[in-house]
């Protein structure tokens, strides 16, 4: 069944015929098949413009369709057209983007459409993208477009004043030039826009649905994607069912498939997506519960196995013989995220750019035992971060090693000695130059069930170099707020990539972003200038060199003490197929399949 080529042909010819074909395609989703999946934390809701947590976003990614998507198997992550016919046409050196929509894509049926089939149009994207920046909502994703699109900021200001966003007024930089064409005009070139248009939160919602359900939109996600939500018991269970209006897709690799993924690629041949009719998702917060349930066969695909259990399931990075025998498949992949300790550069003690201030931060960085963090605390489920930029994204250089890193207590003490941080009063703790008292406060947040091993590690390092550390426990919301407003000395942080480009990380250290993403309040002219350059150019050797220089600046001035990039381990039952963890895109259930007979044979039901 060469469905995709059929679709292409029909697309350009007869549009009503396609509807038939779509039904045919989704009829392939076997309603007898139910895939069991778990979330390790509770979801919050399913309005793409309102929620920002990872788990809600998994559901959103399976219900709503952004213009672009990612190739399921290609690494590094590679954008492909989703509801767009092709990748956008780029004009004026990355300032204007033109997206052409596929015709004949329909929303899932909903009472809001009054029994009619509702086709997806460019106006839906205009509306959906405007919703993202509505200042009268939480708008966690406003930063994706705010300050970038021509004419949009003015509308936001107006909406703030009027307390209502006028969705009918035209934004110059964001408009549908015809029913199927969307044109986005930016203030300055930005080659990362396609990535933004591949994020699940930029997926299309229908205005009728938003207006019908109002505040309850959360529980009525209606999209054009492969699944629709049929059951929702908050913070407990979500059931997705194949959307019968879905256009049907066939996966075809866009690049050479990695030899390890040949089996997966093969399983897609002639398979119309989605294959599994029902997805049954449960929230299982306890790592032990989900691991044991997986071993029991109650869970088909277990993503992000808790680090504690990895050494049991796959000691030394190899699947344990017991699981091997069962035919369980195991995937271990570096996730594009970075954990780090922030220093507040505006703080009179730990901040500052003079050599003595830099020395203190550098000594602290050297006292943090990253090897122990990665090998012992994270049970090898992590890589020592060499640069702010994590693996798997553009701008990451595996050959680059932090020239000023490494755990080295003797050197840390040497630096402190050299810059006058000495123990003046003989109490065993160092004082600041000039014998001024020295104590550094680190903000930490404890939530139920959390571990304190990283706090212990930090304290250990401070003790060993003779610098007093106070760990202040704060409720998480306050911790976040104090980081944002610069009311702290030191704090832990982590950043997961929104899109696979190093710019997403470097913007966190760009001076003018102080008070926005830049929580360390690092403001260094040389770095700022480099950032402005890399932000407006496409990737090239030249850009890569600039990234490396930026990495070196971060190492030298140490606004961040880099810690680790997480590695995640995923377990897949022998009867589940098509799984591959995507570094950027949320898990997409349409790629997964299960072999019911095999499951029955193994579980003996």
């Amino acid at each position, binding site marked *: 069944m060469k469905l995709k080529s059929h679709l292409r042909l029909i697309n350009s010819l007869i549009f009503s015929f396609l509807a038939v074909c779509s039904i045919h395609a989704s009829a392939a989703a076997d309603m007898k098949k139910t895939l069991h999946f778990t979330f390790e934390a509770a979801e919050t809701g399913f309005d793409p413009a309102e929620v920002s947590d990872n788990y809600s976003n998994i559901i959103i990614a399976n219900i709503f369709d952004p213009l672009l998507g990612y190739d399921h198997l290609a690494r590094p992550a590679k954008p492909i057209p989703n509801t767009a016919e092709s990748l956008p046409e780029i004009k004026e050196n990355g300032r204007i983007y033109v997206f052409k929509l596929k015709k004949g894509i329909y929303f899932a049926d909903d009472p809001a459409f009054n029994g009619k089939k509702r086709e997806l149009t460019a106006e839906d994207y205009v509306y959906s993208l405007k919703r993202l920046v509505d200042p009268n909502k939480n708008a966690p994703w406003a930063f994706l477009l705010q300050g970038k699109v021509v004419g949009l900021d003015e509308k936001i200001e107006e909406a703030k004043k009027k307390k209502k966003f006028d969705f009918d007024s035209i934004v110059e930089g964001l408009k549908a030039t015809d029913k199927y064409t969307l044109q986005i005009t930016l203030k300055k070139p930005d080659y990362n826009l396609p990535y933004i248009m591949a994020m699940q939160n930029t997926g299309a919602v229908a205005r009728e649905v938003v207006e019908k359900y109002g505040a309850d939109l959360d529980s009525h996600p209606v999209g054009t994607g492969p699944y629709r939500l049929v059951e929702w018991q908050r913070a407990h269970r979500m059931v997705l069912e194949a959307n019968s209006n879905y256009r049907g897709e066939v996966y075809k690799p866009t690049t050479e498939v990695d030899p390890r993924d040949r089996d997966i690629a093969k399983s897609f041949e002639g398979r119309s997506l989605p294959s599994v009719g029902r997805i049954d998702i449960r929230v299982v917060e306890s790592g*032990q519960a989900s691991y044991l349930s997986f071993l029991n066969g109650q869970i088909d695909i277990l993503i992000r196995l808790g680090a504690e259990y990895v050494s049991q399931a796959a000691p030394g990075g190899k699947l344990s013989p017991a699981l091997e025998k069962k035919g369980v498949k195991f995937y271990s992949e570096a996730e594009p995220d970075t954990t780090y300790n922030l220093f507040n550069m505006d703080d009179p003690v730990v901040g500052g750019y003079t050599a003595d201030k830099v020395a203190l931060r550098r000594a602290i960085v050297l006292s943090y035992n990253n090897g122990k963090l990665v090998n012992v*605390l994270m049970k090898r489920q992590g890589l020592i971060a060499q640069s702010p930029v994590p693996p798997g994204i553009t701008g990451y250089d595996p050959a680059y090693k932090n020239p000023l890193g490494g755990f080295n207590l*003797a050197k840390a003490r040497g630096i402190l000695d050299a810059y006058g941080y000495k123990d003046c009063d003989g109490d065993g703790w160092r004082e600041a130059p000039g014998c001024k008292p020295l104590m550094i406060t680190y903000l930490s947040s404890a939530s139920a*069930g*959390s571990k304190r091993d990283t*706090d212990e590690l930090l304290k250990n390092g401070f003790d060993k170099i003779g610098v007093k550390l106070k*760990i202040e426990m704060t409720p998480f919301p306050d911790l976040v707020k104090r980081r944002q407003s610069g009311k702290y000395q030191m704090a832990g942080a982590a950043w997961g990539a929104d899109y696979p480009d190093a710019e997403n990380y470097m913007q966190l250290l760009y001076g003018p972003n102080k008070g926005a993403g830049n929580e360390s309040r690092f403001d260094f002219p040389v770095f700022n200038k480099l950032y402005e350059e890399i932000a407006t150019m496409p990737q090239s050797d030249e850009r890569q060199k600039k990234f490396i220089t930026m990495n*070196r600046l971060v190492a030298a001035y140490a606004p961040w003490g880099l810690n680790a990039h997480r590695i995640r381990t995923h377990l897949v039952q022998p009867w589940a197929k098509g799984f591959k963890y995507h570094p950027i895109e949320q898990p997409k259930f349409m790629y997964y399949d299960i072999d019911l007979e095999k499951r029955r044979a193994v579980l003996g039901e």
Partner: protein
Amino acid sequence: MSMNGTNTRSASFWIQAWKRLLADPVARICGCILAIYLVVALLSATGLIAKGWNDEVGVSYANPVFAPNEPNPEGDTSLIREDASVTDDETKAIDPLAPKYEEIAKLERTNADKVTVLQRLLPLGGDKTGRDVLAKTIKAGQISIAIGLAASFIAVFIGVVLGAFSGYFGGKVNDALEWVYNVFTSVPYILLVLAFSAVLGKGVGTVILVLGMTGWTGTYRLIRSEYIKHRDRDYVQAANAIGASHLRMMFLHILPNVSHLILIQLSQEVISFIKAEVVLSFLGFGVPVDLISWGIMISDVRSELVIGKWWQLASCATAMSVFVVAFSFFTDSLRDALDPKSSRR
């Protein structure tokens, strides 16, 4: 019965009680166990033992002496060291510390640590970061017992005083105290804990105060209902008739008659606070990071069972369990000794 209420207990009463206690084999055994715990706790508090509980003396999950041959891949992993960094010229050019590189290198040599060999075998094994589980359990015991005792004195004191006033006087006093009680018990525990921790900061003192100030309600309620029961009894009426003051009647007449309840409450609170400390630790409100308690240990080791590193879990669970059981039985015997009528059936 009424005589007992009007007379203050004499010294001979306590001697008799002590003799009865010594005669009870359960009390002797449990008393010895508790004495051992207390001695160990005191030794640990003075720094004579378990001083280095926080030192990483072994490899990760070092084997205990009774299971020396369990495979320990984690131990090998923990020996892997991070590569030393190489500072290239490009970095040197931008590094503000570059002018002092030579001085730093010299000071680095004088500041080097002695090389220590990490143990692969420890008496009760090692924890994730290679700390000695035995020393950790001892130190944790010291902190937990101290927390339990201190918190229970605070809680029972508050509970008894308020309960006595409320039960004895009734009326407006009762209304006012019931109001406080109702307000207190109606607010979810975690919210109170959060509030107290926010006010008091973080430390062992906070944990004690949080437990004490949130844990008095049970004692209050019990003592109140006892006082309601007793205030109408004959001996109280008789004392009232001869003109005893209210405070005298509350604390000299009625209190001895409920003292066994207070004692039981005290013992039960010690146990329940030691256990509540576990919950506090689990919720993230435990002792600060440079201290350890049984609660912290338990909430940290939960995942170690599945991965087969059971010794830390077994050590702290056993230590805590033996203490709690011995304490409970000792209190029972103590009550029997103090309340001889209870054996007169």
